């Protein structure tokens, strides 16, 4: 600890005004405040302050993501060896997945923070912590077989267009991680759709993909055939193909408990999102007989509760819809926002088979709508205040 302090103090002059690297001061400051919460004391306003800061908030979200991450690593290996028809030890599956996923995380953080540092240096801002969570979310919502350069491109797009052009952390309209996902999806459609990317089927000498193997996700299956080979239990526990972090509802629920207990994720958004999805699921169940094609009919007839555990719905609702910057900011707005996220997620997923999952577009759409919702919620408050005045005058 003393050692770090000494090193930081030692190199500080190089970065301060007049030093050789004064332009890089934000980078120095970023590292220094990462190691030590700075010893600033209050000089205006309240003399005592809450112990929480943005770093703490972000780290809590990352901790909540760890179960989904670890499960994703294991599941990637599990799916891979299943496709090859081999049965291997638990640790082998896990390590195989880790070998694929750790590089993605490294690329995501390396590229994303690199871009942030560049912007901070140009704009002479302090480095803000927003990317800590985005950097972990991005690999978790990508398919396992995505090339690293695509991850890098998506990250650059997300940080520059999704965030920095608006002014950085706290100013963005869209969730940066979903911006990255949407970029990957729309920029490389031939690669990102279909059923090739969800399970890695690379073979070494002597290995073969088993006959009759399908790499399609549950939603992909349902959209094309109207049925799926996976059981509800598989979906709930996560033994299904899909983006790295999204498959296991159990792991996501553990994360949700952390977010809800600490109060960092909004329970209003999560609950209303759930209600919205159930509502849409029930509507589909009710109108399934009137569907235009047999595939769609069987997709619509999927029990409403199964819609909650397949695809990225749970992951999106818990970790991405609750992003406080891009969600609605008022309490009443959060109820509306969450409900519509859930509703649209299921609607898009069932009605538009061109998209493998609806939650991404549902959240991005509602991100855009969130300020509008807030506007009307606040207008209602203002109207109430004006009415009070009128009643008084009359």
């Amino acid at each position, binding site marked *: 600890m003393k050692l770090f302090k000494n090193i930081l103090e030692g190199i500080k002059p190089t970065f301060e005004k007049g030093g050789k690297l004064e332009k890089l001061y934000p980078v120095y400051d970023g590292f220094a405040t990462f190691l030590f919460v700075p010893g600033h004391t209050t000089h205006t306003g309240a003399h005592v302050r809450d112990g929480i800061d943005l770093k703490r*908030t972000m780290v809590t979200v990352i901790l909540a993501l760890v179960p989904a991450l670890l499960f994703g690593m294991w599941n990637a290996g599990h799916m891979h060896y299943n496709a090859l028809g081999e049965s291997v030890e638990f640790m082998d599956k896990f390590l195989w997945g880790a070998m694929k996923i750790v590089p993605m995380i490294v690329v995501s953080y390396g590229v994303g923070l690199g871009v942030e540092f560049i912007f901070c240096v140009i704009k002479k801002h302090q480095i803000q912590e927003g990317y800590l969570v985005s950097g972990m979310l991005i690999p978790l919502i990508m398919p396992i077989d995505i090339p690293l350069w695509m991850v890098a491109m998506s990250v650059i797009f997300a940080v520059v267009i999704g965030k920095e052009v608006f002014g950085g952390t706290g100013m963005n309209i869209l969730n940066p991680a979903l911006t990255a996902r949407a970029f990957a999806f729309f920029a490389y459609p031939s690669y990102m759709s279909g059923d090739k990317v969800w399970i890695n089927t690379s073979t070494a000498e002597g290995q073969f993909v088993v006959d009759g193997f399908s790499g399609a996700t549950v939603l992909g299956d349902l959209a094309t055939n109207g049925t799926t080979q996976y059981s509800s239990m598989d979906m709930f526990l996560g033994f299904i193909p899909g983006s790295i972090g999204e498959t296991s509802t159990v792991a996501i629920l553990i994360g949700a408990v952390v977010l809800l207990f600490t109060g960092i994720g909004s329970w209003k958004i999560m609950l209303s999102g759930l209600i919205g999805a159930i509502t849409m699921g029930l509507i589909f169940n009710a109108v399934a007989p009137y569907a235009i094609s047999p595939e769609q009919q069987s997709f619509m007839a999927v029990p409403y509760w199964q819609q909650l555990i397949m695809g990225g719905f749970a992951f999106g609702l818990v970790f991405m819809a609750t992003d406080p910057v891009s969600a609605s900011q008022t309490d009443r707005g959060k109820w509306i926002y969450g409900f519509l996220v859930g509703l649209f997620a299921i609607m898009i997923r069932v009605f538009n088979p061109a998209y493998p999952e609806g939650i991404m577009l549902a959240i991005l759409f509602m991100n855009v709508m969130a300020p509008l919702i807030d506007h009307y919620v606040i207008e209602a408050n203002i109207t109430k205040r004006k009415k009070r005045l009128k009643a008084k005058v009359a």
Partner: protein
Amino acid sequence: MPEVIKIKKGVDIKLQGSAEKIYASTAAPSTYALKPGDFPAIRLKLSVKEGDEVQAGDAVFFDKDRSDILFTSPVSGEVVEVVRGEKRKILEVRILADQDIKYRDFGSSKPSDLSREDVKAKMLKSGCWPFVRQRPYNIIANPNRAPRDIYVSCFDSAPLAPDADFVVHGQEAEFKLGIQALQQLTDGKVHLGVDGSNNPSEAFTGIDDTVVTRYKGPHPAGNVGVQIHATAPINKGETVWTLNFQDVIIIGRLFKEGKFDAQRSMALCGSQVLKPRYYKLTMGANLKTLLEEGLKPTDNRIISGNVLTGSHVNFEGYLGFYDSQVTVIPEGGDPRFFGWLTPNLDQFSISRALFNWTMPNKALKLDASLNGEERAFVVTGEYDKVFPFDIYPVQLIKSIMVKDIEAMENLGIYEVAEEDFALCEVVCTSKIPVQETVREGLNMMLNELGD
């Protein structure tokens, strides 16, 4: 039985070092000071110069724009120093006190025998007027306006605040006289807000023709702004006057004894005070003799007022004009190694992301650390947990930041004061200087619209 109103939003920050209910005595302070910084949005002009002799109740300075508002000396003695800062702005006017205080005689009288104008004139002349503050803007009231109502909060819910029932004991008659004087000033009612969690003193509940309301709940239930909002919110164009209950006692004394005797019961409290107790001290008193009674030998932060809204003073500083509490906490400010990852059990937080939720009743020894750095607004909904108004706090602050007068008005700035936002500032993850921003907003409105 008075109505009980429950305030649900808010939080009590439990701190170490609450004052024991005993009056201790201390050597009389040798100097006193009036600090223009205690009065926001005001331009002052001196009416004395260094070397002048004054009596208690003689004007020291006055409001340039409303010249009948006088600020008078709390003691008799010699004006020894006018401390000035940048651009010759007056920071303090120091008065060396006589051994025996000579009071200027304003004549004793029963407020009920006097007309409104007489009551007003007496309060203005004696220097009691600045105790009366007005919403909107939370500034010294404009004496030419008739307020809709007058509100007095008869308890203080801030951390370590003096106990109102203990303080008022023995001064019931003065309090009653003070309230009677205030009743002369308004066509509306005098509203008294009392603590709903126990049986408040008869002194507060037994005065004729007042509206007594009991408030139950965590801080800021004792803030007068919260009480106005809960009973009869301020609309555009309305004015409500507010006073601290101890200042009502000083006004009562003026009518009873005919002198400006600004003595208050104040609590010396906080984790760094060896023996936290009550003292009788006159407004503007030098704190040195008091603090010499015993502080822990650490790097201390001395606050005139409470930890939420008080002002930072040094060891030889002076008690503020409106303050009845001096809090001493450690200054703190040591960088914490990976502080964003450690459990931080010694810190206060309303978030469960820190671990002090495991011991909700423990009194904490908080220091003045900011615990982070200023950031953009990210987290939402946290202000709402501690802000018991039907007002959107973040949106109001943002409208101030972009200087949108109309939006500020629409979002309810007339009802609030800095102190109402103090807890928002405490819990803010992004460490935004909320109270300062609110003050800027109020000043902007004031410049635009006048009082």
